[in-house]
Every structure is written in structure tokens, then in C-alpha cells.
């Protein structure tokens, strides 16, 4: 059958809530077995997009096919094959972990063993704790377990590791990696770049309801327009000419005492040597590789993480006052 090697096929999705367009002409083609990331700021339309894919919402325009099944018309058949972890979804508050896993397991043709599943998300010690008494991170892990209990072929994970401590986060990542080994297609919504860079084969960057870029994480990073960046604080003005001619340097920006050098190659070494030779004293020298966030800024003019962006702007404002 042609087209069935695609696990998810969304075509021209459009969804509007009253006056606000949440999703605007989004098209995605995700081959079976891929871990596909949807990255974007809050309110970019990530959750609406996956809710349309899950058939939870009906698009105003466009179609979604999952494993060749229409997300609306073939809902009944699709439910057996699709596992969904919703952001902020709640469960029967007075039921325990084991009771919920058992209940949800009965919905599916061939559920996973509940003991093993509970073990795999690290909740064995809390199996008899009621949902309402679990910590936020534990509730999140239970929610992921319930998304997986029916041995789905496609899994939607909305904000997989939000609210988890670093160890639990790494545990969830390895759970997702083992899904990849089993050939399960994963649609991962995130605003955590580290997560996306580590797990995803390809990433769609969403901004204001539109896909602004779609590539592998490394391919997206290349769109940042530079490979490396060196920043430092100089006590005295640094002549731009001093750095611009150096090997590998592509761009130099000076903002007060803070200097940002972008380029490629062994940039930190090259810049440091040049500064020492010129007898310029610098502090807070930092060398970084370009990240998805840099790509996001290059593509949309804004940072991925709102809070961090506001934070930096405040810092910049303070600097300007000095």
C-alpha cells in the first residue's frame, strides 16, 4: 500500500480558537520509527498540533492520517494503536498507581504487564499510592506509563519531562530510546532543547502556529549561521579590526564591554591568543557551540525560552544603564 510507511501524515492543518489562529497550515510527514520533535515557545501551537494528530480536536481545515487511518473518521481503530500522554491530564484521584495501570490496560487488546511497566517508569515503590498523593513528577511518570500500556505503534508525548528531576528525566529519555528500538514512532512536544537534541531524529520548529523550519537537530543548529561563539568582557574597548581578520572569525559584535565573536574552527584558542598578544585583559571568557536556541533566534528573532529571554533583556537593560 502506498503511503503506509508514513506513521503520521498531516496536511494543511488549520485551527482557530475564536479570534486567535493556533495552528496555521501545518503539514508534517513522519516516517514509521522516527522520533519527531515539535519545538516552540509557549503558545506556538505545539499542543494544538498534537491534539489534532490525536483526533482530540477537529481541524478547521486539513487532514490527519495516522498509520493510514483518518484521525477523525477512523478514531475507534486508531485508539488501539495510538498512545497519548496529555499535558496536565488528570486521573481518578482516589485510585492507586497499580489500579490505574490495570484499568487502562484492560482497554487494549494486548496490554503490557502492569508490574513491568510500573517498574520501567520507576514507580514500583509507589504502586499502592493514590494518584492524588503522588508528587508532580510521579504523576507525570504514571501518565507516561498509561500512554504506553497498550503497546502503541505511535506515541504522542506532550512535555515529556516537565516537572521531573534530572535523574527521572534521564530515565524517561532512555524509555523513549527503547521505544525507538522497538520501531515505535514518537511525536515529542518539548521546549527543552537538550531533550530534543538528544532524542529526536527530526524537529519541526513552530512559531505562531507555523512550521518555520524542519530538519534534523544538527541541521537546524547549522541554520544558526555560525558554529561557535566566544564571548568575553573587556576592561577597555577592543578594536573590531583586531578580531575580524582572524582565521575562522565570521562576525564580531561589541556591546559596551561585552564582545561576541561568532565563527568556526578553533575559535576560542584563536581569539584568546590574539587578545593576549594585543595585551588586552579580558574576563568571563566563554566558548560555546551553536545550539537549537541560536537557530531559533536566527529563524524567528526570539529566544526559545521566554523566561530566559526576559532575563537576558533585563541584564542588557541594566548594562545599558551603567
Amino acid at each position: 500500500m502506498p503511503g503506509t510507511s508514513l506513521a503520521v501524515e498531516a496536511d494543511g492543518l488549520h485551527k482557530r480558537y475564536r479570534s486567535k489562529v493556533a495552528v496555521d497550515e501545518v503539514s508534517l510527514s513522519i516516517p514509521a520509527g522516527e522520533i519527531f520533535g515539535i519545538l516552540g515557545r509557549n503558545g506556538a501551537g505545539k499542543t494544538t498540533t498534537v491534539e489534532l494528530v490525536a483526533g482530540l480536536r477537529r481541524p478547521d481545515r486539513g487532514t490527519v492520517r495516522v498509520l493510514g487511518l483518518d484521525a477523525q473518521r477512523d478514531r475507534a481503530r486508531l485508539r488501539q494503536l495510538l498512545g497519548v500522554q496529555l499535558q496536565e491530564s488528570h486521573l481518578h484521584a482516589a485510585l492507586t498507581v497499580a489500579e490505574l495501570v490495570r484499568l487502562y490496560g484492560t482497554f487494549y487488546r494486548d496490554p503490557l504487564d502492569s508490574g513491568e511497566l510500573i517498574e520501567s517508569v520507576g514507580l514500583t515503590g509507589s504502586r499502592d499510592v493514590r494518584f492524588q498523593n503522588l508528587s508532580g513528577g510521579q504523576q507525570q511518570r504514571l501518565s507516561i506509563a498509561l500512554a504506553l500500556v497498550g503497546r502503541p505503534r505511535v506515541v504522542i508525548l506532550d512535555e515529556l519531562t516537565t516537572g521531573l528531576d534530572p535523574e527521572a528525566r534521564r530515565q524517561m529519555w532512555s524509555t523513549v530510546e527503547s521505544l525507538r528500538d522497538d520501531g515505535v514512532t514518537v511525536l515529542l512536544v518539548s521546549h527543552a532543547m537538550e531533550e530534543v537534541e538528544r532524542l529526536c531524529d527530526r524537529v519541526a520548529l513552530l512559531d505562531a502556529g507555523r512550521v518555520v523550519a524542519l530538519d534534523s537537530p544538527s541541521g537546524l543548529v547549522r541554520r544558526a549561521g555560525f558554529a561557535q561563539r566566544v564571548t568575553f568582557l573587556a576592561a577597555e574597548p577592543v578594536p573590531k579590526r583586531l578580531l575580524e581578520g582572524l582565521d575562522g572569525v565570521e562576525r564580531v559584535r561589541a556591546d559596551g564591554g561585552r564582545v561576541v565573536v561568532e565563527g568556526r574552527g578553533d575559535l576560542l584558542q584563536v581569539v584568546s591568543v590574539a587578545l593576549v598578544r594585543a595585551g588586552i585583559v579580558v574576563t568571563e571568557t566563554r566558548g560555546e557551540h551553536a545550539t537549537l536556541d541560536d537557530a531559533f533566534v536566527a529563524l524567528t528573532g526570539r529566544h526559545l525560552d521566554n523566561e530566559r529571554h526576559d532575563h537576558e533583556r533585563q541584564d542588557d537593560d541594566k548594562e545599558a544603564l551603567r
Partner: protein
Amino acid sequence: MTDISVHRPGLRSWAEMLTCELKMVVRDTAGLIVPIGLPMLILVMNASAAGEQAVANGRTALDVYVLPLVFTMVVATTGIVNMPSFLAYYRRSGILRRLAVTPASPAMVLIAQVAVGMLQTGLGIAAAWILAMVAFGAKPPVNAGAAIGILALSTATMYAVGMIVAALAPTPNSAVAIGLSLFFALGALGGMFGGRSGLPDVVATVGAWLPFGASVQAMSAAWVGASVQPAHLIGLVVSLLLGGVVAAACFRWD
């Protein structure tokens, strides 16, 4: 492509869902007090005095007036107060939404809730009945078949009224508030706080047509062996249909 036939949750799933709903109800201790404790209280408070007042056919006021009232209260609290507050909580908390992405239909929850509510009603009625017989010498209805039929009709009607509450209440809190207000209003007009003789004629007549009053009156007639007035049965059936229509038109899963 692997075989992707429709697979609906089977009997095991239904059994599990019922068990879970039952656990939810049992673990919600406060929710058990009103439908079982309150009617028992009314029974105990009125039983000894009423048990000595003979009415007709060897039945006392306890049999003819108190027990129909107590049974109606059990049915009304479960249907009008408890069931809608559970449904509103499920809707509000996103449980129905979570179920909507599984092969289980949210209707499973609704049906399981109704089944558990029936069980609760049955328990409440059995407990009150045993207490009345053992401690106060209550006697069974003269027309037992009619009494059981009326109880079943009242239960269905109270659930239909409860579905209106569930359909209209925006939050779990308001579901409890609306449900309780409606329960007390229907109860007051139906003679829950003493005879309806103290009420103005028009109010008393309307009260006898509304589900609570109609249920008490009809059951009372069956108990003493008198013929059940069609007006009371019509009152129950009209409320049942009205509740069904409003609920079907207004009920939302999320």
C-alpha cells in the same frame, strides 16, 4: 500493515471500570454519608412515634409515610447530588478527556457511575428497610409489586434530574451546590420536612407533581394498598423525559 480491526474494551474492562468507580465512591467517605446516613437519621427520629399510629390494612404511619419518604430520600440524594458531582469532577479534572484518547468511551464511565449509584441506592434502601423491620416492626407494602415498580421509576427519574444538574453545572463545586439545593427544594415541596398540609394549596399541589413528592405519594399509596393516583405517575414520567431531553441536549464530555 498490521491488522487494525476495531477492538472495543471487553467484559474484563467493564468489570474493572465498575470496580474502580466503586472504589472511588467508597473512598469518598463524605459522599456516602448523605445518601445513606441522612435517610437513616430521618427514619430513627420518626420511627418510634409513627410505628404506633395505625393507618389502614394493618400498616402504621411508619410503613405508609416514613418509609416511602426515607426510600425516596436515598434515591434522590444518590441521583441528584452524588452522581452529578462525580460527573462534574470527572469532566473538570480532565479524566473524561484522558479516556477520550483510549479505546474506552467516556460513556463507560457514565454507565459505570450509574451502576455504582444503583448499588449504593440498593444498599441504602436495604439498610433502612432492615433497620425499620428489626428495630421498629415495619411491615412490607400491601401492594409490593407496585411499590417496587414505583421505586424503580423514581430512581430513573432522579437520575434524569441528576443528569440535568451534571449537564448545567460548570464546576464540581457548583454541581454539589445545585444538586443539594434542588434536592432540598424538591424535598421541602414533597413533604420531607413534615406534612405538606402546612404548605399553601398551590405549592402543595405542585410539590406532589414534582419527582420527590410524586415518589413519596405513589409509594405511600402502594404501601397502604390504595390505588396509585395517575397524576403522581405522570409527574414522575414527565420529569424523567424532560431530564433525558435536557441532558442529551446539553451534556458535554469536556
